[in-house]
Protein backbone atom coordinates (compact mmCIF):
# COMPACT_ATOMS: atom_id res chain seq x y z
CA UNK A 1 0.00 0.00 0.00
CA UNK A 2 1.31 3.39 -0.86
CA UNK A 3 2.91 5.68 1.66
CA UNK A 4 0.17 8.19 0.97
CA UNK A 5 -2.65 5.82 1.85
CA UNK A 6 -0.97 4.55 4.95
CA UNK A 7 -0.25 7.90 6.52
CA UNK A 8 -3.29 9.61 5.23
CA UNK A 9 -4.70 11.06 8.43
CA UNK A 10 -1.37 12.49 9.49
CA UNK A 11 -0.79 13.97 6.07
CA UNK A 12 -4.27 15.40 5.97
CA UNK A 13 -3.71 16.81 9.43
CA UNK A 14 -0.45 18.35 8.35
CA UNK A 15 -2.11 19.85 5.31
CA UNK A 16 -4.96 21.24 7.37
CA UNK A 17 -2.41 22.67 9.77
CA UNK A 18 -0.57 24.40 6.96
CA UNK A 19 -3.81 25.84 5.64
CA UNK A 20 -4.77 27.26 9.01
CA UNK A 21 -1.24 28.53 9.58
CA UNK A 22 -1.33 30.29 6.25
CA UNK A 23 -4.63 31.91 7.11
CA UNK A 24 -3.25 33.05 10.46
CA UNK A 25 -0.10 34.36 8.80
CA UNK A 26 -2.16 36.38 6.37
CA UNK A 27 -4.22 37.79 9.20
CA UNK A 28 -1.61 38.65 11.79
CA UNK A 29 1.63 40.53 11.24
CA UNK A 30 4.80 38.68 11.94
CA UNK A 31 3.11 35.33 12.32
CA UNK A 32 5.09 33.78 9.53
CA UNK A 33 8.52 33.84 11.06
CA UNK A 34 10.89 31.31 12.48
CA UNK A 35 10.91 32.75 16.02
CA UNK A 36 7.13 32.60 16.19
CA UNK A 37 7.16 29.00 15.06
CA UNK A 38 9.89 28.15 17.54
CA UNK A 39 7.77 29.78 20.19
CA UNK A 40 5.04 27.34 19.29
CA UNK A 41 7.39 24.47 19.85
CA UNK A 42 8.66 25.67 23.20
CA UNK A 43 5.34 26.95 24.49
CA UNK A 44 3.67 23.64 23.78
CA UNK A 45 6.58 21.44 24.70
CA UNK A 46 5.18 20.45 28.08
CA UNK A 47 1.83 19.44 26.65
CA UNK A 48 3.66 17.79 23.78
CA UNK A 49 5.80 15.58 25.97
CA UNK A 50 2.75 14.53 27.95
CA UNK A 51 0.92 13.82 24.72
CA UNK A 52 3.73 11.62 23.44
CA UNK A 53 3.29 9.37 26.46
CA UNK A 54 -0.46 9.52 26.06
CA UNK A 55 -0.06 8.38 22.45
CA UNK A 56 1.32 5.06 23.62
CA UNK A 57 -1.45 4.61 26.13
CA UNK A 58 -4.18 5.37 23.61
CA UNK A 59 -2.51 3.19 20.97
CA UNK A 60 -2.63 0.35 23.45
CA UNK A 61 -6.36 0.88 23.81
CA UNK A 62 -6.17 2.51 27.23
CA UNK A 63 -6.38 6.02 28.57
CA UNK A 64 -4.43 7.91 31.20
CA UNK A 65 -6.20 10.69 33.06
CA UNK A 66 -3.48 11.07 35.64
CA UNK A 67 -0.92 12.74 33.38
CA UNK A 68 -1.74 16.33 34.32
CA UNK A 69 -1.56 15.54 37.99
CA UNK A 70 1.65 13.55 37.61
CA UNK A 71 3.17 16.41 35.67
CA UNK A 72 2.26 18.95 38.33
CA UNK A 73 3.38 16.63 41.07
CA UNK A 74 6.72 16.10 39.44
CA UNK A 75 7.30 19.82 38.93
CA UNK A 76 6.39 20.58 42.53
CA UNK A 77 8.58 17.73 43.74
CA UNK A 78 11.54 19.05 41.77
CA UNK A 79 10.88 22.50 43.20
CA UNK A 80 10.73 21.23 46.75
CA UNK A 81 13.83 19.10 46.38
CA UNK A 82 15.85 21.91 44.87
CA UNK A 83 14.60 24.79 46.98
CA UNK A 84 13.88 23.21 50.34
CA UNK A 85 16.39 20.40 50.34
CA UNK A 86 19.13 21.88 48.15
CA UNK A 87 19.30 18.90 45.85
CA UNK A 88 21.29 18.89 42.69
CA UNK A 89 19.03 19.60 39.69
CA UNK A 90 19.76 16.31 38.00
CA UNK A 91 19.20 14.36 41.16
CA UNK A 92 15.87 16.11 41.64
CA UNK A 93 14.78 15.47 38.07
CA UNK A 94 15.92 11.87 38.40
CA UNK A 95 13.93 11.43 41.59
CA UNK A 96 10.80 12.85 39.99
CA UNK A 97 11.24 10.59 36.97
CA UNK A 98 11.50 7.60 39.25
CA UNK A 99 8.35 8.67 41.09
CA UNK A 100 6.41 9.35 37.90
CA UNK A 101 7.44 6.11 36.27
CA UNK A 102 6.63 4.14 39.39
CA UNK A 103 3.22 5.76 39.71
CA UNK A 104 2.52 4.88 36.08
CA UNK A 105 3.70 1.33 36.50
CA UNK A 106 1.60 0.88 39.61
CA UNK A 107 -1.48 2.09 37.77
CA UNK A 108 -0.66 -0.23 34.89
CA UNK A 109 -0.25 -3.14 37.27
CA UNK A 110 -3.57 -2.37 38.97
CA UNK A 111 -5.28 -2.18 35.60
CA UNK A 112 -3.82 -5.46 34.50
CA UNK A 113 -4.12 -7.40 37.71
CA UNK A 114 -7.58 -6.37 38.82
CA UNK A 115 -9.24 -5.74 35.50
CA UNK A 116 -10.56 -2.34 36.62
CA UNK A 117 -10.96 -0.06 33.63
CA UNK A 118 -8.04 2.28 32.90
CA UNK A 119 -10.39 5.25 32.98
CA UNK A 120 -11.18 4.65 36.63
CA UNK A 121 -7.74 3.63 37.75
CA UNK A 122 -6.11 6.66 36.22
CA UNK A 123 -8.90 8.96 37.39
CA UNK A 124 -8.29 7.72 40.90
CA UNK A 125 -4.60 8.13 40.18
CA UNK A 126 -5.25 11.74 39.22
CA UNK A 127 -7.00 12.48 42.53
CA UNK A 128 -4.38 10.62 44.46
CA UNK A 129 -1.39 12.28 42.88
CA UNK A 130 -2.97 15.71 43.10
CA UNK A 131 -3.55 15.18 46.80
CA UNK A 132 0.02 14.03 47.17
CA UNK A 133 1.30 17.13 45.39
CA UNK A 134 -0.66 19.40 47.73
CA UNK A 135 0.70 17.52 50.69
CA UNK A 136 4.33 17.96 49.74
CA UNK A 137 3.78 21.65 49.04
CA UNK A 138 0.53 23.54 49.22
CA UNK A 139 1.50 26.39 46.93
CA UNK A 140 3.24 26.54 43.63
CA UNK A 141 6.91 26.95 44.28
CA UNK A 142 9.40 29.26 42.59
CA UNK A 143 12.69 27.69 41.64
CA UNK A 144 15.69 29.95 41.71
CA UNK A 145 18.85 27.92 41.72
CA UNK A 146 21.76 28.98 39.52
CA UNK A 147 22.25 25.51 38.14
CA UNK A 148 18.59 25.21 37.29
CA UNK A 149 18.47 28.63 35.70
CA UNK A 150 21.48 27.92 33.56
CA UNK A 151 19.72 24.91 32.10
CA UNK A 152 16.51 26.82 31.67
CA UNK A 153 18.10 29.51 29.51
CA UNK A 154 20.18 27.05 27.49
CA UNK A 155 19.58 27.00 23.76
CA UNK A 156 20.55 24.62 21.01
CA UNK A 157 20.94 26.83 17.99
CA UNK A 158 17.75 28.84 17.90
CA UNK A 159 15.82 26.31 19.94
CA UNK A 160 15.16 26.71 23.65
CA UNK A 161 15.80 23.70 25.80
CA UNK A 162 12.12 22.78 26.16
CA UNK A 163 11.64 22.69 22.40
CA UNK A 164 14.70 20.46 22.06
CA UNK A 165 13.33 18.12 24.69
CA UNK A 166 9.99 17.95 22.91
CA UNK A 167 11.47 17.17 19.51
CA UNK A 168 13.78 14.59 21.06
CA UNK A 169 10.81 12.92 22.67
CA UNK A 170 8.93 12.79 19.41
CA UNK A 171 11.91 11.29 17.61
CA UNK A 172 12.61 8.68 20.26
CA UNK A 173 8.94 7.81 20.56
CA UNK A 174 8.67 7.39 16.82
CA UNK A 175 11.62 5.04 16.89
CA UNK A 176 10.14 3.03 19.75
CA UNK A 177 6.72 2.85 18.14
CA UNK A 178 7.86 1.81 14.70
CA UNK A 179 11.08 -0.07 15.07
CA UNK A 180 11.00 -1.90 18.36
CA UNK A 181 9.04 -5.01 19.28
CA UNK A 182 7.65 -3.17 22.29
CA UNK A 183 6.16 -0.53 20.03
CA UNK A 184 4.55 -3.10 17.78
CA UNK A 185 3.18 -4.96 20.77
CA UNK A 186 1.51 -1.75 21.86
CA UNK A 187 -0.22 -1.50 18.50
CA UNK A 188 -1.23 -5.15 18.70
CA UNK A 189 -2.60 -4.73 22.19
CA UNK A 190 -4.73 -1.83 21.02
CA UNK A 191 -5.85 -3.66 17.90
CA UNK A 192 -7.23 -6.56 19.89
CA UNK A 193 -6.34 -7.46 23.42
CA UNK A 194 -7.66 -10.98 23.34
CA UNK A 195 -6.04 -11.70 20.02
CA UNK A 196 -2.74 -10.32 21.25
CA UNK A 197 -2.95 -12.63 24.23
CA UNK A 198 -3.81 -15.62 22.06
CA UNK A 199 -0.95 -14.77 19.73
CA UNK A 200 1.35 -15.16 22.70
CA UNK A 201 2.42 -11.54 23.00
CA UNK A 202 3.52 -10.31 26.42
CA UNK A 203 0.28 -8.49 27.19
CA UNK A 204 0.92 -7.90 30.86
CA UNK A 205 4.42 -6.57 30.41
CA UNK A 206 3.37 -4.35 27.55
CA UNK A 207 0.43 -2.88 29.39
CA UNK A 208 2.34 -2.08 32.53
CA UNK A 209 5.16 -0.64 30.45
CA UNK A 210 2.76 1.58 28.53
CA UNK A 211 1.50 3.26 31.68
CA UNK A 212 5.02 3.46 33.03
CA UNK A 213 6.06 5.21 29.82
CA UNK A 214 3.18 7.60 30.20
CA UNK A 215 4.14 8.30 33.80
CA UNK A 216 7.72 8.80 32.70
CA UNK A 217 6.70 11.25 29.99
CA UNK A 218 4.40 13.11 32.34
CA UNK A 219 7.07 13.48 34.98
CA UNK A 220 9.58 14.48 32.37
CA UNK A 221 7.09 17.09 31.21
CA UNK A 222 7.03 18.25 34.82
CA UNK A 223 10.79 18.73 34.63
CA UNK A 224 10.43 20.58 31.34
CA UNK A 225 7.81 22.74 33.03
CA UNK A 226 10.25 23.76 35.70
CA UNK A 227 12.67 24.84 32.99
CA UNK A 228 9.94 26.68 31.15
CA UNK A 229 8.41 28.45 34.16
CA UNK A 230 11.20 28.27 36.72
CA UNK A 231 8.61 26.99 39.10
CA UNK A 232 6.79 23.94 40.26
CA UNK A 233 3.14 24.56 39.57
CA UNK A 234 -0.07 22.95 40.75
CA UNK A 235 -2.14 24.83 38.26
CA UNK A 236 -0.64 23.92 34.91
CA UNK A 237 -1.65 20.30 35.11
CA UNK A 238 -5.34 20.92 35.72
CA UNK A 239 -7.29 19.86 32.68
CA UNK A 240 -4.12 18.89 30.83
CA UNK A 241 -5.26 15.29 30.47
CA UNK A 242 -8.10 16.38 28.21
CA UNK A 243 -5.80 18.57 26.15
CA UNK A 244 -3.36 15.71 25.78
CA UNK A 245 -6.08 13.29 24.74
CA UNK A 246 -7.45 15.85 22.31
CA UNK A 247 -4.08 16.40 20.66
CA UNK A 248 -3.50 12.68 20.32
CA UNK A 249 -6.90 12.08 18.82
CA UNK A 250 -6.90 15.02 16.44
CA UNK A 251 -3.52 13.70 15.37
CA UNK A 252 -5.40 10.76 13.90
CA UNK A 253 -4.98 8.18 16.64
CA UNK A 254 -8.09 6.15 17.26
CA UNK A 255 -9.33 6.33 20.82
CA UNK A 256 -10.20 2.66 20.53
CA UNK A 257 -6.51 1.91 20.06
CA UNK A 258 -4.38 0.15 17.49
CA UNK A 259 -4.23 2.90 14.89
CA UNK A 260 -2.26 6.11 14.96
CA UNK A 261 1.19 7.60 15.09
CA UNK A 262 3.50 9.76 17.10
CA UNK A 263 3.85 12.26 14.28
CA UNK A 264 0.12 12.67 14.28
CA UNK A 265 0.46 13.73 17.89
CA UNK A 266 3.11 16.26 16.93
CA UNK A 267 0.70 17.73 14.39
CA UNK A 268 -2.07 17.67 16.98
CA UNK A 269 0.03 19.53 19.54
CA UNK A 270 1.11 22.17 17.05
CA UNK A 271 -2.48 22.52 15.93
CA UNK A 272 -3.87 23.06 19.39
CA UNK A 273 -1.07 25.52 20.10
CA UNK A 274 -1.82 27.41 16.91
CA UNK A 275 -5.50 27.65 17.72
CA UNK A 276 -5.02 28.76 21.30
CA UNK A 277 -2.31 31.27 20.51
CA UNK A 278 -3.95 32.84 17.53
CA UNK A 279 -7.25 33.26 19.34
CA UNK A 280 -6.15 34.21 22.81
CA UNK A 281 -3.18 36.40 22.03
CA UNK A 282 -3.23 37.56 18.44
CA UNK A 283 -6.93 37.95 17.90
CA UNK A 284 -7.29 39.59 21.31
CA UNK A 285 -10.99 39.04 21.65
CA UNK A 286 -12.58 41.19 24.25
CA UNK A 287 -14.81 38.52 25.73
CA UNK A 288 -13.74 35.42 27.45
CA UNK A 289 -16.84 33.64 26.23
CA UNK A 290 -16.32 34.48 22.58
CA UNK A 291 -12.71 33.40 22.91
CA UNK A 292 -13.87 29.96 23.92
CA UNK A 293 -16.44 29.81 21.18
CA UNK A 294 -13.78 30.69 18.65
CA UNK A 295 -11.37 28.08 20.02
CA UNK A 296 -14.03 25.41 19.77
CA UNK A 297 -15.08 26.46 16.31
CA UNK A 298 -11.52 26.42 15.04
CA UNK A 299 -10.87 23.03 16.57
CA UNK A 300 -13.96 21.66 14.92
CA UNK A 301 -13.11 23.15 11.57
CA UNK A 302 -9.66 21.61 11.78
CA UNK A 303 -11.14 18.20 12.47
CA UNK A 304 -13.64 18.56 9.65
CA UNK A 305 -10.99 19.81 7.25
CA UNK A 306 -8.83 16.86 8.16
CA UNK A 307 -11.73 14.48 7.49
CA UNK A 308 -12.47 16.12 4.18
CA UNK A 309 -8.86 15.98 3.07
CA UNK A 310 -8.58 12.37 4.15
CA UNK A 311 -11.54 11.49 2.00
CA UNK A 312 -10.21 13.49 -0.91
CA UNK A 313 -6.74 12.04 -0.83
CA UNK A 314 -8.07 8.55 -0.23
CA UNK A 315 -10.32 8.89 -3.25
CA UNK A 316 -7.48 10.15 -5.39
CA UNK A 317 -5.20 7.43 -4.09
CA UNK A 318 -7.55 4.69 -5.12
CA UNK A 319 -8.09 6.06 -8.59
CA UNK A 320 -4.41 6.06 -9.45
Amino acid at each position, binding site marked *: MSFLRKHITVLAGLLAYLVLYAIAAAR*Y*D*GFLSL*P*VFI*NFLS*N*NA*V*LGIVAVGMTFVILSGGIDLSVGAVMSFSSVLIGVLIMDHQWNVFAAVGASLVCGTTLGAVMGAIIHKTGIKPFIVTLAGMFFVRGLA*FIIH*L*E*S*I*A*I*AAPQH*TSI*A*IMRVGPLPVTAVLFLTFVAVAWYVAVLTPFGRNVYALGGGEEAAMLMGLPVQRTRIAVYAVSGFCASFAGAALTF*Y*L*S*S*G*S*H*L*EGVGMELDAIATVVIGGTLLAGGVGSVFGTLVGVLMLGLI*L*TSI*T*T*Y*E*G*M*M*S*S*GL*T*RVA*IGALLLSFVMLQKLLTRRIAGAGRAT
Partner: protein
Amino acid sequence: QETATPAPGGATPPAAQKKLSVGFSQVGAESAWRTAETKSIRGEAEKRGVDLKFADAQGKQASQIQALTSFIAQKVDVIVLAPVVETGWEVVLTQAKEAKIPVILVDRGIKVSDESLYTTLIASDFVEEGRMAAEWLAKQTNGKANIYELQGSTGAAPAIDRKKGFEEALQKFPDMKIVKSQSADFTRAKGKEVMEAFIKSDRDQIQAVYAHNDDMALGAIQALDEAGMNPGKTVTLISIDGVKGAFEAMVAGKLNATVECNPLLGPLVFDTINKVRAGESVPKFIKSQDQLFEQANAAQVISTREY
Protein backbone atom coordinates in the same frame (compact mmCIF):
# COMPACT_ATOMS: atom_id res chain seq x y z
CA GLN B 1 -2.98 44.04 13.54
CA GLU B 2 -5.82 44.76 15.88
CA THR B 3 -6.66 48.29 16.76
CA ALA B 4 -8.94 49.45 19.50
CA THR B 5 -11.69 51.99 19.01
CA PRO B 6 -10.44 55.33 17.70
CA ALA B 7 -9.24 57.71 20.36
CA PRO B 8 -11.63 60.38 21.46
CA GLY B 9 -10.01 63.75 21.71
CA GLY B 10 -9.86 63.77 25.54
CA ALA B 11 -6.91 63.14 27.75
CA THR B 12 -3.79 62.47 25.73
CA PRO B 13 -0.82 60.73 27.24
CA PRO B 14 1.96 63.20 27.86
CA ALA B 15 4.73 61.36 26.12
CA ALA B 16 3.69 60.93 22.53
CA GLN B 17 1.73 61.81 19.48
CA LYS B 18 1.47 58.13 18.80
CA LYS B 19 -1.28 56.39 20.70
CA LEU B 20 -0.13 54.63 23.81
CA SER B 21 -0.35 50.89 23.37
CA VAL B 22 -0.82 48.65 26.36
CA GLY B 23 -0.91 44.87 26.46
CA PHE B 24 -3.13 43.46 29.16
CA SER B 25 -2.97 39.78 30.00
CA GLN B 26 -5.95 38.74 32.07
CA VAL B 27 -6.47 35.39 33.80
CA GLY B 28 -9.95 34.74 32.53
CA ALA B 29 -13.50 35.46 33.56
CA GLU B 30 -14.04 32.99 36.35
CA SER B 31 -15.72 35.40 38.79
CA ALA B 32 -17.75 38.57 38.92
CA TRP B 33 -14.83 40.21 40.62
CA ARG B 34 -12.52 39.51 37.73
CA THR B 35 -15.02 40.56 35.12
CA ALA B 36 -15.36 43.83 36.98
CA GLU B 37 -11.61 44.26 36.91
CA THR B 38 -11.44 43.59 33.18
CA LYS B 39 -14.28 46.00 32.55
CA SER B 40 -12.68 48.70 34.63
CA ILE B 41 -9.36 48.47 32.84
CA ARG B 42 -10.95 48.28 29.41
CA GLY B 43 -13.32 51.14 30.15
CA GLU B 44 -10.51 53.33 31.38
CA ALA B 45 -8.41 52.52 28.32
CA GLU B 46 -11.25 53.50 26.07
CA LYS B 47 -11.81 56.70 27.99
CA ARG B 48 -8.19 57.68 27.68
CA GLY B 49 -7.82 56.61 24.08
CA VAL B 50 -5.28 53.94 24.79
CA ASP B 51 -4.74 51.12 22.32
CA LEU B 52 -5.39 48.15 24.61
CA LYS B 53 -4.40 44.68 23.48
CA PHE B 54 -6.34 42.27 25.56
CA ALA B 55 -5.51 38.61 25.97
CA ASP B 56 -7.71 36.26 27.92
CA ALA B 57 -5.59 33.36 29.13
CA GLN B 58 -8.48 31.04 29.96
CA GLY B 59 -6.84 30.35 33.29
CA LYS B 60 -3.61 29.02 31.77
CA GLN B 61 -0.20 30.35 32.61
CA ALA B 62 1.23 29.08 29.35
CA SER B 63 -1.26 31.27 27.51
CA GLN B 64 -0.24 34.25 29.58
CA ILE B 65 3.39 33.66 28.78
CA GLN B 66 2.54 33.42 25.11
CA ALA B 67 0.53 36.59 25.36
CA LEU B 68 3.46 38.39 26.96
CA THR B 69 5.83 37.10 24.31
CA SER B 70 3.56 38.35 21.59
CA PHE B 71 3.14 41.73 23.33
CA ILE B 72 6.89 42.03 23.38
CA ALA B 73 7.08 41.07 19.72
CA GLN B 74 4.45 43.70 18.93
CA LYS B 75 6.48 46.27 20.87
CA VAL B 76 3.74 47.55 23.16
CA ASP B 77 4.64 50.45 25.42
CA VAL B 78 3.52 48.91 28.67
CA ILE B 79 2.47 45.46 29.79
CA VAL B 80 -0.20 44.98 32.42
CA LEU B 81 -0.27 41.50 33.88
CA ALA B 82 -2.80 39.92 36.19
CA PRO B 83 -0.80 36.78 36.93
CA VAL B 84 -2.65 33.50 37.16
CA VAL B 85 -0.07 32.18 39.61
CA GLU B 86 2.74 33.74 41.58
CA THR B 87 5.61 31.72 40.21
CA GLY B 88 7.18 31.07 36.88
CA TRP B 89 7.61 34.56 35.45
CA GLU B 90 11.37 34.98 35.45
CA VAL B 91 12.08 34.08 31.86
CA VAL B 92 9.39 36.05 30.12
CA LEU B 93 9.77 39.09 32.36
CA THR B 94 13.47 39.08 31.64
CA GLN B 95 12.59 39.31 27.97
CA ALA B 96 10.31 42.22 28.68
CA LYS B 97 13.03 43.93 30.66
CA GLU B 98 15.49 43.44 27.83
CA ALA B 99 12.95 44.99 25.48
CA LYS B 100 12.64 47.88 27.97
CA ILE B 101 8.91 47.42 28.41
CA PRO B 102 7.71 48.25 31.90
CA VAL B 103 5.50 45.60 33.46
CA ILE B 104 2.76 46.50 35.87
CA LEU B 105 1.29 43.70 37.91
CA VAL B 106 -2.27 43.93 39.05
CA ASP B 107 -4.25 42.24 41.79
CA ARG B 108 -1.67 39.71 42.89
CA GLY B 109 2.05 39.63 43.39
CA ILE B 110 4.62 37.29 41.95
CA LYS B 111 7.67 35.60 43.35
CA VAL B 112 10.81 36.47 41.46
CA SER B 113 14.38 36.61 42.62
CA ASP B 114 14.98 39.92 40.88
CA GLU B 115 12.49 42.56 41.97
CA SER B 116 13.44 44.83 39.09
CA LEU B 117 11.70 42.50 36.67
CA TYR B 118 8.48 44.38 37.25
CA THR B 119 7.89 48.03 37.81
CA THR B 120 5.17 47.95 40.36
CA LEU B 121 2.34 45.92 41.80
CA ILE B 122 -1.10 47.39 42.17
CA ALA B 123 -3.16 45.14 44.38
CA SER B 124 -4.86 44.49 47.59
CA ASP B 125 -2.97 42.79 50.34
CA PHE B 126 -4.70 39.43 50.82
CA VAL B 127 -3.00 38.79 54.14
CA GLU B 128 -4.10 42.16 55.36
CA GLU B 129 -7.68 41.42 54.29
CA GLY B 130 -7.66 38.24 56.32
CA ARG B 131 -6.30 40.15 59.28
CA MET B 132 -8.97 42.83 59.01
CA ALA B 133 -11.65 40.19 58.90
CA ALA B 134 -10.32 38.48 62.00
CA GLU B 135 -10.01 41.65 63.97
CA TRP B 136 -13.49 42.79 63.11
CA LEU B 137 -14.89 39.41 63.99
CA ALA B 138 -13.11 39.39 67.33
CA LYS B 139 -14.48 42.80 68.13
CA GLN B 140 -17.96 41.80 67.11
CA THR B 141 -18.02 38.60 69.14
CA ASN B 142 -16.08 39.92 72.10
CA GLY B 143 -13.20 37.67 71.34
CA LYS B 144 -15.09 34.47 71.77
CA ALA B 145 -16.48 32.40 68.92
CA ASN B 146 -16.56 29.05 67.18
CA ILE B 147 -15.59 29.92 63.66
CA TYR B 148 -16.33 27.91 60.51
CA GLU B 149 -14.15 28.79 57.59
CA LEU B 150 -15.00 28.47 53.90
CA GLN B 151 -11.74 28.43 51.98
CA GLY B 152 -11.11 29.35 48.41
CA SER B 153 -9.69 26.89 45.89
CA THR B 154 -6.96 24.74 47.33
CA GLY B 155 -3.54 26.11 46.53
CA ALA B 156 -4.77 29.48 45.21
CA ALA B 157 -2.87 32.49 46.49
CA PRO B 158 -5.86 34.50 47.78
CA ALA B 159 -7.09 31.46 49.67
CA ILE B 160 -3.73 30.81 51.25
CA ASP B 161 -3.08 34.42 52.18
CA ARG B 162 -6.55 35.18 53.46
CA LYS B 163 -6.32 32.13 55.65
CA LYS B 164 -2.86 33.10 56.82
CA GLY B 165 -3.79 36.67 57.72
CA PHE B 166 -6.90 35.52 59.50
CA GLU B 167 -5.11 32.91 61.54
CA GLU B 168 -2.31 35.31 62.39
CA ALA B 169 -4.70 37.84 63.81
CA LEU B 170 -6.60 35.18 65.73
CA GLN B 171 -3.47 34.36 67.73
CA LYS B 172 -4.28 37.28 69.93
CA PHE B 173 -7.68 35.88 70.84
CA PRO B 174 -7.38 32.55 72.60
CA ASP B 175 -11.14 32.01 72.73
CA MET B 176 -11.66 32.35 69.04
CA LYS B 177 -11.08 29.10 67.30
CA ILE B 178 -11.59 27.76 63.83
CA VAL B 179 -13.57 24.59 64.34
CA LYS B 180 -13.77 23.44 60.75
CA SER B 181 -12.26 24.71 57.57
CA GLN B 182 -13.17 23.39 54.16
CA SER B 183 -12.53 24.40 50.58
CA ALA B 184 -15.59 25.59 48.71
CA ASP B 185 -13.79 26.63 45.52
CA PHE B 186 -14.86 30.28 45.72
CA THR B 187 -18.31 29.39 44.38
CA ARG B 188 -21.75 29.96 45.72
CA ALA B 189 -22.97 26.44 45.02
CA LYS B 190 -20.07 24.90 46.91
CA GLY B 191 -20.39 27.41 49.70
CA LYS B 192 -23.96 26.34 50.22
CA GLU B 193 -23.12 22.66 50.07
CA VAL B 194 -20.24 22.84 52.53
CA MET B 195 -22.27 25.02 54.92
CA GLU B 196 -25.05 22.47 54.82
CA ALA B 197 -22.59 19.79 55.83
CA PHE B 198 -21.33 21.97 58.70
CA ILE B 199 -24.89 22.58 59.86
CA LYS B 200 -25.73 18.92 59.86
CA SER B 201 -22.77 17.96 61.98
CA ASP B 202 -22.32 20.95 64.30
CA ARG B 203 -25.57 22.88 64.08
CA ASP B 204 -25.72 24.58 67.47
CA GLN B 205 -22.04 25.28 67.85
CA ILE B 206 -21.81 27.47 64.78
CA GLN B 207 -21.34 31.04 65.94
CA ALA B 208 -19.38 32.63 63.15
CA VAL B 209 -18.57 32.00 59.50
CA TYR B 210 -15.57 33.38 57.70
CA ALA B 211 -15.65 33.02 53.94
CA HIS B 212 -12.71 33.81 51.65
CA ASN B 213 -15.06 35.47 49.22
CA ASP B 214 -18.58 36.83 49.10
CA ASP B 215 -19.96 34.19 46.77
CA MET B 216 -19.29 31.43 49.26
CA ALA B 217 -20.77 33.54 52.05
CA LEU B 218 -23.93 34.08 50.03
CA GLY B 219 -24.20 30.33 49.52
CA ALA B 220 -23.69 29.80 53.23
CA ILE B 221 -26.40 32.34 54.05
CA GLN B 222 -28.80 30.41 51.89
CA ALA B 223 -27.93 27.18 53.67
CA LEU B 224 -28.38 28.81 57.07
CA ASP B 225 -31.69 30.32 56.00
CA GLU B 226 -32.99 26.98 54.82
CA ALA B 227 -31.96 25.40 58.09
CA GLY B 228 -33.84 28.14 59.93
CA MET B 229 -30.72 29.42 61.61
CA ASN B 230 -30.91 33.18 61.24
CA PRO B 231 -27.73 34.27 59.52
CA GLY B 232 -26.52 37.70 60.55
CA LYS B 233 -28.10 37.37 63.99
CA THR B 234 -27.31 34.09 65.71
CA VAL B 235 -24.53 33.37 63.28
CA THR B 236 -22.09 36.14 62.43
CA LEU B 237 -20.81 36.11 58.87
CA ILE B 238 -17.90 37.98 57.39
CA SER B 239 -16.45 37.64 53.93
CA ILE B 240 -14.09 39.34 51.53
CA ASP B 241 -14.45 41.10 48.15
CA GLY B 242 -17.37 43.49 48.57
CA VAL B 243 -19.44 42.56 45.53
CA LYS B 244 -22.88 44.01 45.11
CA GLY B 245 -24.60 40.85 46.26
CA ALA B 246 -22.77 41.09 49.55
CA PHE B 247 -24.09 44.59 50.10
CA GLU B 248 -27.60 43.48 49.33
CA ALA B 249 -27.21 40.71 51.87
CA MET B 250 -25.95 43.18 54.43
CA VAL B 251 -28.87 45.48 53.81
CA ALA B 252 -31.14 42.50 54.31
CA GLY B 253 -29.33 41.88 57.58
CA LYS B 254 -28.00 38.46 56.62
CA LEU B 255 -24.32 39.24 56.18
CA ASN B 256 -22.51 41.12 58.90
CA ALA B 257 -19.50 42.52 57.14
CA THR B 258 -17.36 42.35 54.06
CA VAL B 259 -13.82 43.46 53.44
CA GLU B 260 -13.68 45.17 50.11
CA CYS B 261 -11.07 43.98 47.69
CA ASN B 262 -11.41 46.55 45.00
CA PRO B 263 -11.28 45.29 41.43
CA LEU B 264 -11.86 48.71 39.86
CA LEU B 265 -8.20 49.25 39.29
CA GLY B 266 -8.50 50.91 35.88
CA PRO B 267 -7.96 54.53 36.87
CA LEU B 268 -5.17 53.66 39.25
CA VAL B 269 -3.45 51.48 36.66
CA PHE B 270 -3.47 54.12 33.97
CA ASP B 271 -2.45 56.87 36.37
CA THR B 272 0.49 54.75 37.31
CA ILE B 273 1.32 54.06 33.68
CA ASN B 274 1.39 57.75 32.99
CA LYS B 275 3.65 58.35 35.97
CA VAL B 276 6.01 55.61 34.86
CA ARG B 277 6.20 56.96 31.34
CA ALA B 278 6.78 60.43 32.61
CA GLY B 279 9.77 59.08 34.47
CA GLU B 280 8.36 59.61 37.94
CA SER B 281 9.27 57.02 40.47
CA VAL B 282 6.50 54.83 41.77
CA PRO B 283 6.46 52.62 44.86
CA LYS B 284 7.01 48.92 44.36
CA PHE B 285 3.65 48.06 45.92
CA ILE B 286 0.69 50.32 45.41
CA LYS B 287 -1.98 49.10 47.77
CA SER B 288 -5.45 49.60 46.45
CA GLN B 289 -7.84 50.97 49.02
CA ASP B 290 -9.36 48.12 50.96
CA GLN B 291 -12.12 49.00 53.32
CA LEU B 292 -14.36 47.12 55.64
CA PHE B 293 -18.09 47.61 55.28
CA GLU B 294 -20.64 46.74 57.91
CA GLN B 295 -24.38 46.52 57.86
CA ALA B 296 -24.51 50.02 59.29
CA ASN B 297 -22.94 51.69 56.28
CA ALA B 298 -23.98 49.18 53.63
CA ALA B 299 -27.17 50.93 52.68
CA GLN B 300 -25.37 54.19 51.85
CA VAL B 301 -22.76 52.61 49.63
CA ILE B 302 -24.88 50.08 47.85
CA SER B 303 -26.03 52.46 45.15
CA THR B 304 -22.46 53.25 44.19
CA ARG B 305 -21.52 49.61 43.68
CA GLU B 306 -20.76 48.83 40.09
CA TYR B 307 -20.29 45.10 40.22
